[in-house]
């Protein structure tokens, strides 16, 4: 099972595009990538979830961990997601109120 992680930069914001399934097997790689970005001083991060085919609470936990980490540097981590089935797990767990979630990368970067 594959998880593709691809980082680009847009207006000083690190955009992390996630592709594939995020579960207990692949989530550690997502966590490492987020830690790496923060260690590199990237405290404004947009995680693009449009390519995610599956995400469960292990993935949610990693994203919450990332948000906590950038906030401790006065940064921010926001999400791009329009897929109903992915948004649903954020809604159920109340995390739509914790993350700012955008429809496009441009909107997320501009916010």
């Amino acid at each position, binding site marked *: *099972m594959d998880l593709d992680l691809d980082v680009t930069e847009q207006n000083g914001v690190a955009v992390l595009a996630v592709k594939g*399934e995020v*579960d*207990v*097997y692949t989530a550690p790689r997502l966590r490492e990538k987020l830690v790496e970005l923060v260690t590199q001083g990237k405290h404004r991060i947009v995680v693009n979830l449009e390519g995610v085919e*599956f995400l*469960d*609470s*292990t993935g*949610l*936990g*990693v994203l*919450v*961990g990332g*948000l*906590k980490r950038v*906030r401790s540097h006065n940064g921010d981590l926001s999400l791009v997601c329009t897929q*109903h*089935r992915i948004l*649903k*797990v954020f*809604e*159920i*767990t*109340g*995390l*739509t*109120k*914790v993350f700012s979630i955008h429809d496009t990368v441009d909107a997320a970067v501009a916010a």
Partner: protein
Amino acid sequence: MDQSIELEIPARPEYVALARLVVSSLASTRRDLADDRIDDLKVAVSEACTNAIEAHRSADSDDSVVVRCAEFDDRLEISIEDRGHGFDPESLPEHPPVTDPDRLNFERGLGIPLIRTLVDEVVIDSSGDGTSVRITMQCTPVDPLDIGGFQDTGSDGSEEPAP
């Protein structure tokens, strides 16, 4: 129960995807379970398998985790069984409200609430010898009087944010 299929996987993270694949493939051959309900089921199965694997890890057990799928005319029953040390599903810690800044300290504990919200019924049976999580997905209304209303409750309910 010769209508049931059983999948035994090593208690390791790389096999959770296989459990999801088997359950969703089985569910999708039924014409009576909508795609978004199959997505819900995949998340629930993934959560339960993740917990089972974690339970074996902390009990230092080499045993397999068993996923059983029983098909009935009106429902699909999936059970995930482990041989870990068990837990008390009634006394899980409550999460602080989402507005509380402390909420960010809760990176975990989202699995069981997700399962409860996404599926039609969940029965957790846990003891010191292991845990079985039985998930039920209704496929067609049991009572003809409930047609429509019944299935709406299932999918609308699950899209509401949990309290």
